[in-house]
């Protein structure tokens, strides 16, 4: 999204980033409606307009400040995470530890959900918020180990360099466990599909139960934006970045991002919702040892 490494970021890239993210997020919403509800390309637009003009519902004695922070921080975190994702050899902002930055911004979702659930002063949203904190504790450690494994394979915490280190072989091929755990935690961090217990129907919509109007729009758009960013980060982390024949780098990045995004969107349909305490058991008993073994294997390969 910026120029090559080392150049100062051009102004147009800073302006273009939110637009690109918004376009990708919209297409994720469109794919979701096409896959699952049979709606057309304009269905999300119609829903968005409906939410914008809808009147806000009020609850008794809400903590409006915290609820507002929770709702706004979700899309804001997605945008801040997107600043470090390289599209064509460079990103809008290039900290040398962009993998850690991406991880930090995606943890913001914990705060967003808890605050949005707490702020509206209603039982079901609060339950949803607590569910997400528990789910976060379950997915976060395997997720971190998966990220570290990719960084270990590349010898760098910079997404651009991680992508560049895969010119021969994609990390997805020789770190399959880390890649699978990454995709699973991308679903978990966006409380999407089988991991949507924090907003599940058994709690009347969980965190989102009392959100209405523009708040609801921002919340669910932020969730899709986070899903989009997670899909986009999978490309430099595991799928070779912009590398590919014939087409330029940015085109390959976009194609791969769309492929991962389509997979993640498709997942929503076919699986039952997992209770987060069961996921916690699975994550700590199976996923953490598996990712540690994966990191060990990669470490041995890297040292030799």
């Amino acid at each position, binding site marked *: 999204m910026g120029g090559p490494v080392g150049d100062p970021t051009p102004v147009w890239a800073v302006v273009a980033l939110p637009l690109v993210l918004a376009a990708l997020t919209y297409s994720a919403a469109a794919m979701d409606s096409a896959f699952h509800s049979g709606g057309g390309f304009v269905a999300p637009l119609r829903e968005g307009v409906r939410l914008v003009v809808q009147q806000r519902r009020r609850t008794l004695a809400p903590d409006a400040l915290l609820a507002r*922070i929770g709702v706004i921080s979700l899309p804001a975190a997605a945008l801040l995470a997107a600043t470090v994702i390289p599209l064509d050899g460079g990103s809008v902002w290039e900290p040398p530890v962009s993998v850690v*930055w991406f991880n*930090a911004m995606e943890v*913001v979702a914990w*705060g967003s959900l808890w605050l949005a659930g*707490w702020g509206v002063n209603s039982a079901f949203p609060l339950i949803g918020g*607590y569910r997400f904190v528990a789910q976060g504790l379950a997915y976060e450690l395997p997720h971190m180990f998966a990220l570290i494994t990719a960084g270990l394979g590349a010898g760098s915490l910079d997404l651009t360099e991680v992508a560049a280190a895969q010119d021969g072989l994609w990390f997805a091929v020789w770190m399959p466990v880390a890649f699978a755990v990454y995709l699973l935690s991308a679903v978990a961090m966006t409380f999407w599909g089988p991991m949507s217990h924090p907003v599940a129907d058994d709690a009347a919509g969980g965190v989102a139960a009392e959100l209405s109007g523009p708040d609801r729009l921002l919340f669910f758009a932020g969730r899709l934006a986070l899903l989009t960013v997670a899909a986009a980060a999978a490309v430099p982390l595991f799928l070779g970045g912009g590398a590919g024949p014939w087409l330029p780098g940015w085109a390959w990045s976009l194609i791969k991002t769309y492929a991962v995004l389509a997979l993640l969107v498709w997942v929503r349909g076919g699986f039952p919702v997992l209770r987060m305490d069961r996921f916690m058991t699975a994550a700590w008993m199976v996923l953490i040892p598996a990712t540690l073994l994966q990191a060990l294997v990669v470490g041995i390969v890297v040292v030799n």
Partner: protein
Amino acid sequence: MQTVAFWVLAVGAVGFGVAVFVVDSMARATFALLASFLCVGVELLLLDLDYLGVLVILMMIMEMLVMAVFMIMYMMNPGGLMPMTMVHNKRGALAISGSVFAALAAGVFLTPWPERRGSVPADPTFSVGESIMGPKMLVMMVIGIAILATMVASVVLATDRGRYDRPPGRADGAK
């Protein structure tokens, strides 16, 4: 530009820190503390400490969310809907902390600090990684054992059933 950022963040860090003990709502207090930590994390970024700054941001978000759960669990007035104070010896605490600040501030400006030795390495993250895996490895090993001890101790303290006790009728331990 950097100086402006420093002062804005410094005022933010201290201001949110004060807010922790001023606001009524425990949820707000927790997130005021988080805001203070986020300001400090960005201050570390200003000092070229990319890794440690982002690490502080990452860890503190997770830590404060866990904190929030316990705050709500143990405080009498989590939402701040019934204003109340829970302090003891407020005047003494103010006097002590005020004089500590005065002493520290005097020390800051009166001490002849040593000259700067060396220069910032090209990659501070690499240098800290190399040092904890080399000359400072003992520090990391002690931290590792401390973390393990804390995990064991906190589980032992916090559980009321103990390691081998299961709910009746669920001998396999499943939920």
